[in-house]
């Protein structure tokens, strides 16, 4: 989605000094793009994500059924002209439901990623730029959150509050910003002593501009990679929570609750299509995010030499 947009902002990585940067801006970007597109898996991932995301966006036009319409006569009906991918245990059309489920799953994934990344970037920048006791306090908070096996906290929080989509997004964000914060902070620590930052400080630019205008763009590479991988992880976590009975309440469809509804010995043995399709959907989506994330990592990392 907004990867391209974000990529525009990618400035040269730290090894290149400020002066050289200006002149080579375009070429750096094109090198990154070139590296990315050389990676076959990353390209496959990008194509698949494009298809999956558009299918979710265009769900209302692509769906053949109301995703929540039950039809007790069609219980676990096999794939047919009527139900392309079969029907679930309440006779709902799996194909249509999967399209709408995609909206919810991707929304949860993206929204949680954006929130977590925002928190992480802000905290990491502040800690890294100011250092001292601010850094000390913020990093202890990170240490504390990172120490909890996050599934324990997730289960506790979600079982205590009602698992609505917004709730899940908030909880995911609160528990997942720490990685980004650490990345950004360490980039800041190494960047803030560099010439271009010192120059900006000497010129008396306001701190906010230095942080967000000068240092951050240089640290954005690893953040984008982490964010891409995080979406996949959120989708998996959502499905795991559903499996444990703590996911988004029915009848709202998510890939996670569709898959976990089908996790039943009898269903596996008699209606293979029900667990298969939502499972594949999660699998392919997460796989694609990983491909893209890995491709971005290589492309954005100057140390990875071209083939």
């Amino acid at each position, binding site marked *: 989605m907004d990867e391209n947009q974000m990529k525009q902002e990618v400035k040269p990585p730290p090894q290149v000094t400020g002066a050289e940067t200006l002149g080579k801006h375009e070429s750096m970007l094109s090198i990154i793009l070139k590296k990315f597109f050389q990676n076959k898996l990353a390209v496959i991932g990008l194509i698949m994500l494009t298809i999956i995301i558009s299918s979710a966006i265009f769900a209302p036009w692509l769906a053949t059924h109301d995703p929540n319409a039950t039809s007790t006569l069609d219980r676990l009906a096999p794939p047919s002209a009527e139900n392309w991918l079969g029907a679930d*245990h309440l006779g709902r059309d799996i194909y249509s439901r999967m399209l709408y489920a995609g909206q919810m799953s991707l929304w949860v994934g993206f929204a949680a990623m954006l929130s977590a990344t925002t928190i992480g970037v802000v905290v990491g920048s502040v800690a890294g730029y100011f250092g001292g006791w601010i850094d000390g306090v913020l990093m202890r908070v990170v240490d504390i959150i990172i120490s909890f096996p996050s599934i324990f906290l997730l289960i506790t929080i979600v079982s205590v509050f009602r698992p609505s989509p917004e709730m899940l997004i908030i909880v995911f964000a609160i528990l997942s910003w720490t990685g980004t914060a650490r990345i950004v902070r360490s980039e800041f620590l190494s960047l803030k002593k560099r010439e271009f930052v010192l120059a900006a400080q000497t010129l008396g630019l306001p701190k906010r501009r230095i942080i967000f205008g000068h240092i951050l763009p240089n640290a954005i590479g690893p953040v984008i990679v982490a964010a891409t991988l995080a979406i996949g992880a959120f989708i998996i976590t959502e499905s795991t929570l559903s499996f444990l009975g703590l996911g988004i309440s029915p009848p709202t469809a998510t890939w996670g609750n569709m898959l*976990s509804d089908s*996790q039943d010995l009898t269903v596996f043995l008699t209606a293979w299509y029900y667990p298969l399709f939502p499972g594949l959907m999660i699998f392919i989506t997460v796989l694609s995010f990983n491909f893209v994330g890995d491709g971005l990592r290589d492309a954005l990392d100057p140390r990875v030499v071209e083939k």
Partner: protein
Amino acid sequence: MGKKAYWLFLSMVLALGLVLTACNGGGEDVDTEGGDDADPAGEDEGEDAAEDENGEAAGEPQEGGEIIIGQPGEPNNLHSAYASDTQSTDIVRMIHAGVLRYNEDMEMEPDVAAEMPEVSEDGLTYTIELRDDVYFHDGEQLTADDVVFTYEVFLDDDYTGNRITQFDRVDHIEATDEFEVTIELSEPDAALEASALGFEIMPEHILGDVAADEQEDHEFSTSDAVVGAGPLQLAEWDHGTSLTLEAHDEYHGEGPYLDTVTLRLAEDANAILAMLQAGEVDHANIRPQDLETAEAIDGVTVVAETGYNYNYIGWNHDRPPFDDPGVRRAMTMAIDREAIIDGVLQGHAEIAHFPHHPMSWAYSDDIEEVPYDPEGAVELLEEAGFEQNEEGQMEYEGEPFSFELLTNQESHARVDWVVVVQDMLADIGIDVQTDTMEFGAYLDRIQPPNWDFDAIAGAWSLGIDPDPEPLWHSDNYEQGQNNIHYNSEEFDELAEDNRSFVDQDERAEAIQAAYAQVTEDQAYTFMYYPDIHQAHIDEIQGFQMSPRGDYFRIEEWWVEEE
């Protein structure tokens, strides 16, 4: 596996477990053990004909052998006065023995008692003769003192368990002889035998010096230190893994034939089914949707019974429009219960019209059955002032008819039918939001003092005594189980003091009249009585099943050696 893994609660059993818990949370006095010595309401129609499996035909019981049972969750307490969830009560019934016990027809019969209690003319004095051949697992004899001791726990001011109402008409209890107990009541209580006298007897020689409120946490109640007079004794409790029970050689009744019964803990219904299929367990409860899978396993027989519980939708009578009986009736008419039973439960349930179980002596066929009739429902709603707008949306003075239907997530079947109900009501233009909550949070929202719901989808596990007051008497609103606030003077009058009718026919009449009022007012929309299923390997003989879905008369099961 079951997504609502919880385990605890996946399956039907699990559902059942919850139901019971619901009752506990809701006070087991509706429910609880015990029945009444009355004529049975007849056999239920368990499908899948497993009757022929029932022992006798296969020859003489053989001593010895062991079986492994898939047990959906760990018991919490082994003291009869404190056990409240199904996992616990099922196991308590194997380890301990009560004065009376229920039989397969849900009637009471003597267990530790030599015969049914002798009741005085005025219904105020119960004299119980005990058998003189009953021994606890440690060899001590069970006497009248143990019975008095056990019942007095319930009467103790310090008693912290849930069952107080069962004993609220008991004035005092006395051991009038070594094997004779006399109970004096303050007013007649027709429910006494089916409720109070069903509680299992605890050994005074072990717990006699322990204060009533400390017995709950005592190692007796929470470990394999437990001692009872039941057919099986707890030999080992490997927490999280299994409980091993061994035969009590001096058991006073028939059996036990099995040497060892191992309860293998598996909270997940899928895991239990897989174990059954892989031959790792010999007996298990089966969810309706797994029936075909279980029946297809070689060497396994599945037995069915109508469960002693029902599912319902409770309408909050304090929130318009559900204060209007016409609207509630319209809701019932708009819901195709037959389709729900066929689709969600694969036909393994029976529509409920009556607020108690068909097997109970208080049941009557002569009760109004509200049919599925969506057009009729629309008409009723129009009479109540609703109208459908151009888009088919039901409106009341311009406001769309919209409400929230709340349920707990642990019962798969219920979560599923709630979604179907939502869809059915949408067909007549009613917008239903559903919310599925974790059980504790759910109870907290619906019970006093919060009453924060429009409608709830729930289930009650039924008591053998059919007293209608706890659920519907208006006195039980502020505290009690009438959380929907059914407030009918007619009902209150009809139901009051049904417990005082010593004559069962008179009492049945009073109860039926009260229940007819509940049905007329559609205080609940009664959904169905689900079937329960248990599977066991063919080698198990003498198998019996009760509508409770517990390990009924396990002392009479035996294993056929090849």
